[in-house]
């Protein structure tokens, strides 16, 4: 284990030394830790269930959907390329070194252990939200934290085990895929059967996802049982399911190791995928490989020259990957918007607006503007800097407008809102999108582009937080003033986005490519 603990300790030491060289990043990390501690503290001490009353079934439905999604994608990836704790540097240097495979596996576990803490950081931001809506005690919060940690720690093991089994033959792989499909079709079939009886989409979902049958599904059901204890309280079933998870995880680790002492081969594909994911994330592509995106063959002519070409190219890319601006993000937004009504019956238009703005922030991190800056062309192009900024962000702004309109038409139809409310919510969504995009421009203008992705996201979060304060104040002060509330927010957002755009118009005279 000596060489492996050497890598871990040296990595940690070099990270600290690196932070000493970059005080801005150090401040960002300290801020992240403080906010994490604050949110953890807040999630324990804040009173529960003070704003709205969410039912146990609604909580159960959310937990089930999350678990199904996490397990479905993990198993699907496990079948195709496995799971991995490792980076390519580990593959090239450790896998070829005279180190016992079991020690390398333990080393991988320790690495994963640290990575899962990051998941907890994001989880900590959601707990106050859950506590506002559901009756969750302090013990319940602790259960959520520990279960989430354990869930993400075990995911790669399941992936590795499934790949160890399915990579042996095409027939086994096909059979696994069949089992997974049968499970999904089974769920859909059960949904349809109950839907015929109830005629209510939300009610049907609640019945299916809170059924006792769901609880006996290995792993998913066990995790659900444990997570339900955060609202139902700790009982015998909780301990039993914790025990089942621990024993089965332990057995899976042994199985991974014993099934094929040469598990290295099994993790290669997943490690490469992980490496590609990290590269994509750094380039602002959101991590997911573009290889899986279907690209249509479309006819296109450039109707302009210079900086406008960037906008025209973005339009071409949107046309190729969706129906003009409508793509996976739009569908995801609409599903979340419509789903909110079923999961949280008290959800209103403004509630859906706030949540969609939260998601939009993360979409903006992988938008066209961010991607454009990772290629040299925008820097080299003989065009005015202000025009470059304007045209490189135009398509993204238009997409936000279209996404907002589709989302709020769908949600507005469901909530029977007026056309005015739909229109103004769409405009608010569009203007917040502009704030996010131009805050990224501002962030690069202030901090440059040579820092890491996490630092970039963090600084952008802080800047957005500061810039939108007046919009939040307007929202609060003019609550109940009808359209005036919308108009003032939109006016402020446009003013803020326009000011940033104007202040950053010369950015390409100074900006460095990463």
């Amino acid at each position, binding site marked *: 284990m000596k060489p492996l603990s050497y890598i871990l300790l040296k990595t940690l030491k070099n990270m600290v030394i690196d932070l000493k*060289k*970059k005080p801005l990043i150090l401040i960002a990390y300290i801020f992240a830790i403080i906010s994490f501690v604050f949110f953890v503290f807040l999630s324990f001490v804040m009173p529960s269930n003070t704003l709205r009353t969410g039912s146990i079934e609604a909580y159960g439905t959310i937990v089930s959907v999350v678990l199904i999604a996490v397990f479905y994608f993990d198993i699907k990836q496990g079948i195709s390329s496995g799971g991995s704790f490792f980076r390519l540097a580990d593959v090239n240097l450790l896998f070829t070194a005279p180190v016992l495979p079991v020690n390398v596996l333990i080393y991988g576990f320790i690495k994963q252990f640290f990575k899962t803490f990051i998941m907890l950081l994001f989880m900590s931001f959601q707990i106050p939200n859950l506590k506002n809506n559901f009756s969750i005690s302090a013990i319940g919060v602790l259960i959520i934290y520990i279960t989430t940690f354990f869930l993400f720690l075990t995911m790669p093991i399941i992936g590795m085990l499934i790949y160890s089994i399915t990579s042996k033959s095409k027939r086994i792989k096909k059979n696994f895929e069949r089992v997974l499909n049968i499970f999904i079709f089974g769920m859909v079939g059960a949904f349809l059967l109950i839907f015929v009886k109830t005629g209510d989409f939300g009610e049907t979902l609640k019945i299916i996802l809170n059924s006792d049958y769901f609880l006996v599904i290995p792993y998913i059901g066990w995790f659900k049982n444990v997570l339900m204890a955060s609202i139902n309280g700790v009982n015998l079933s909780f301990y039993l399911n914790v025990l089942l998870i621990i024993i089965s995880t332990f057995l899976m680790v042994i199985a991974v190791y014993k099934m094929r002492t040469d598990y290295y081969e099994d993790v290669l594909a997943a490690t490469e995928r992980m490496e590609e994911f990290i590269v994509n994330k750094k380039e602002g592509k959101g991590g997911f490989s*573009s*290889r899986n*995106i279907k*690209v249509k*063959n479309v006819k*296109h002519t*450039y109707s*302009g*020259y*210079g*900086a406008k*070409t*960037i906008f*025209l*190219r973005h339009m*071409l*890319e949107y046309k*190729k*990957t969706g129906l003009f601006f409508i793509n996976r993000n739009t569908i995801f937004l609409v599903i979340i918007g419509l789903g909110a009504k079923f999961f949280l019956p008290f959800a209103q238009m403004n509630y859906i607006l706030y949540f969609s703005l939260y998601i939009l922030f993360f979409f903006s991190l992988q938008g066209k503007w961010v991607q454009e800056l*990772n*290629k*040299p*062309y925008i*820097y*080299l*192009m*003989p*065009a*005015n800097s202000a025009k470059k900024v304007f045209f490189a962000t135009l398509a993204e702004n238009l997409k936000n407008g279209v996404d907002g309109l589709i989302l709020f038409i769908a949600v507005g139809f469901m909530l029977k809102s007026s056309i005015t409310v739909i229109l103004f919510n769409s405009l608010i969504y569009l203007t917040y999108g502009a704030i996010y995009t131009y805050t990224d421009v501002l962030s690069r203008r202030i901090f440059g582009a*040579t820092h890491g992705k996490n630092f970039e996201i963090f600084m952008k979060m802080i800047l957005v937080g500061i810039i939108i304060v007046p919009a939040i104040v307007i929202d609060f002060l003019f609550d109940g003033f009808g359209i005036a509330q919308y108009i003032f927010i939109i006016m402020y957002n446009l003013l803020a986005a326009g000011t940033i755009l104007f202040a950053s118009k010369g950015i390409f*005279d*100074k900006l*460095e*490519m990463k």
Partner: protein
Amino acid sequence: MLKVTNLTKEYDSTLAVNNVGFEVMGGEIAILLGPNGAGKSTTIKCITGLLKYHGSIQICGFDNKSLMAKKNFGYVPETPALYDMLTVYEHLEFIAHAYGISDYKEYAEKLLERFEILDKKNKLGKELSKGMQQKVSICCALLLRPKVIFFDEPMVGLDPKAIKELKEVFQELKNDGCSVIISTHIIDSVSEIWDKALIMKKGQILFSKSREEIEHESETLEEIFFRVTED
């Protein structure tokens, strides 16, 4: 032509390029040699305006960040950077329009044919191998018919036929009066074509001579390289 004066680039208190100066005339092929980490790529990135720097860089008499300078130079980066969703031909179309070139179609086809990727013109950037991507990157830079062109490790990933073709392109660019700057650490690949050799180490140019100047000396360029760069 290219004129670099007192070029300095610092990263986190490390001097990557230290007070570098050189000139490359029209119709001249300059090679920028040096061991790994010598500062070759950083120098080229500063010249192309991708990085901030101290000093002065003039391209065809214009400041390198000016629109006039940008119109006059082409750049083939060390790592090809293609758009995943664009086909090979769409890359050329995009570049032509971005640079305001209208009569590019025939020349674009010729370039693709020359580098044997005409049959791949409808393939997406993400579907190409690294070598193919490098070829597209070269075609994009050549499409501009630049007066100054920078190649950063252009041979990496290319097949022998493409390397041969690229060497011919270097000669043609030279004959057309273009200033060609090639950064490489493989001396053999450029030994026959260079007019001026610049050898860098630790961010500084330690050697700068023309072919005529060293023709009468007993040392080959490779021997000079090792003498200059070895401690």
